[in-house]
């Protein structure tokens, strides 16, 4: 059995390691400033922290889904970004630690933790079997256990595959991925219900889980494109990232942009047409003042512009240009999350607090530091991936 291997490791001077150092500095500084915020304005601290956490959490979990889709469907696009996806899900223990402040801050974030509010509200009482702090924490632990289990198995088997090619290993990963995708769908849905949707405990939307999963997939693809252009500064890596690979990744970004827009629009049309007070309140808040401006800008800047740009074949086939689109989409993912999360907590003002920035930079810096660390431990391209021959073809 032929071994397909291109053992590329990061040299000590690789630009991404410089990026890693800078990320750590930014991360520590950001977290320190955010910690100051905790003493200045604790409510705002938790809001901003949740936002920042959800952003990087989305990239990691999106990577997990994409990795599993690749294990099932194969494809050259997946073979080249596989190690990035694996490094990304390798940070799940870090994310679990980063989740602790959210768990501690439930009383600041979630209205349903306030006994006096619940006592006056029949609907919240009806939901108490689900929305209560102990169960909330148990669920969070359960989610992280599931994600950690899936992620660590996939990573371990992938490293085993690096050493030796075993067809059974490929089958094992594919089977794991099938089950893993089912688990991913269920856990992420309930996680976003718990952490984001219950910020407005009266509101509900059955598509919310899928909507955030689409966002996670988009963020993960954009993140991989951005990272791969950095990695491609070295010829040894760059030769694997030809126009065909960027083209596929660009098409995935296009597809996820469309899915995101499709789900967002469907949710809007259904709630807007139904016009039930318990549902429209959510959109009502988000269509006032500055939120309205952000909402409209999402239509154009998160959908229309990337859509038009990503239809261009030339842009998709050029790594440097596609990376710009990816960075833009990563930024728009943050704006979208801000629009989803923040109005629940401060409905009147759409202006971001300085903590919103320090939290996302702080968490992101630390997360990136771990991410690159994971990436640097192993060959940058997963060896013996059954789809690798297509890359070189």
């Amino acid at each position, binding site marked *: 059995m032929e071994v397909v291997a291109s053992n590329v490791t990061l040299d000590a001077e690789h630009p991404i390691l410089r990026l890693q150092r800078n990320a750590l500095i930014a991360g520590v500084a950001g977290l320190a400033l955010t910690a100051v915020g905790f003493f200045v304005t604790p409510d705002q601290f938790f809001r901003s922290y949740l936002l920042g956490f959800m952003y990087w959490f989305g990239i990691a979990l999106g990577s997990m889904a994409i990795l599993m889709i690749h294990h099932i469907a194969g494809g050259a696009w997946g073979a080249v970004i596989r190690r990035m996806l694996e490094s990304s899900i390798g940070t799940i223990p870090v994310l679990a630690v980063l989740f602790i402040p959210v768990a501690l801050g439930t009383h600041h974030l979630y209205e349903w933790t306030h006994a006096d509010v619940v006592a006056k509200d029949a609907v919240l009482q009806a939901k108490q079997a689900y929305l209560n702090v102990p169960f909330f924490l148990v669920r969070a632990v359960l989610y992280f256990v599931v994600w950690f289990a899936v992620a660590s198995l996939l990573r371990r088997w992938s490293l085993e595959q690096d050493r030796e090619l075993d067809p059974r290993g490929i089958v094992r990963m594919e089977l794991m991925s099938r089950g893993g995708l089912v688990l991913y769908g269920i856990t992420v849905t309930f996680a976003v219900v718990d952490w984001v949707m219950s910020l407005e405990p009266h509101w509900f939307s059955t598509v919310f889980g899928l909507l955030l999963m689409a966002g996670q997939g988009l963020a993960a693809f954009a993140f991989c494109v951005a990272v791969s252009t950095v990695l491609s500064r070295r010829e040894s890596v760059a030769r694997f990232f030809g126009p065909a690979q960027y083209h596929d990744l660009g098409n995935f970004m296009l597809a996820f942009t469309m899915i995101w827009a499709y789900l967002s629009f469907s949710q809007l049309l259904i709630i*807007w047409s139904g016009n039930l007070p318990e549902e429209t309140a959510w959109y009502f808040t988000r269509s006032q003042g500055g939120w309205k401006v952000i909402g409209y800008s999402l239509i154009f800047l998160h959908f229309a512009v990337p859509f038009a740009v990503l239809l261009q074949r030339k842009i998709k086939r050029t790594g440097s240009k596609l990376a710009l689109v990816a960075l833009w989409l990563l930024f728009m993912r943050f704006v979208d999350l801000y629009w989803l999360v923040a109005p629940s907590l401060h409905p009147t003002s759409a202006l971001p607090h300085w903590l919103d920035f320090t939290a996302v930079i702080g968490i992101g810096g630390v997360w990136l530091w771990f991410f690159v660390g994971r990436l640097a431990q192993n060959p940058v391209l997963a060896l013996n991936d059954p789809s690798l021959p297509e890359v070189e073809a």
Partner: protein
Amino acid sequence: MSSRPASSRPPIYGLMAEFSDPNELIAAIRQARAGGYRRMDAYTPYPIEEVAHELGIHGNHLPKLVLAGGVIGMCAGYALQYWTSVIEYPINVGGRPLNSIISFMPITFETTVLTAAIFAVFGMLALNGLPMPYHPVFNVPRFALASRDRFFLCIEATDPMFDRELTRRFLERLVPRSVAEVEH
């Protein structure tokens, strides 16, 4: 065919060579182009990009046409809804605004796709000059195999280099299965 001098025979559409393998066809096109022939067309039983490439066919205007169709459909679809719902027949439906942009999106999308698809199909047919049930190439009896398993190269008489005898000899050098004159 006949012994009369070439000039007195009725003019023909071109000369057609038959191949049984796509590789032979592509090689033949290359040689024909190297030999200076430009006005020619290949007939294949299925689309082969390399053949188009060798013939020097690069891209076409269809995407632009379809984009135009889509834009027309989009504008017309929205305009129809706006004109009827806001100007011609304003009616209050459950308090929704007259210009219910959100509700107008699905139909705008459908009209966009419909017009674009119509432009794609009819644009393709029109640019290809179809329907054209009669065409000189069908006069070659063996051409019926072009829709089965044979690959044809036709050098047209309008090519400046074209000469009945020289071109025929040129084609015969490519070792085709047959060479035939295409009558008008």
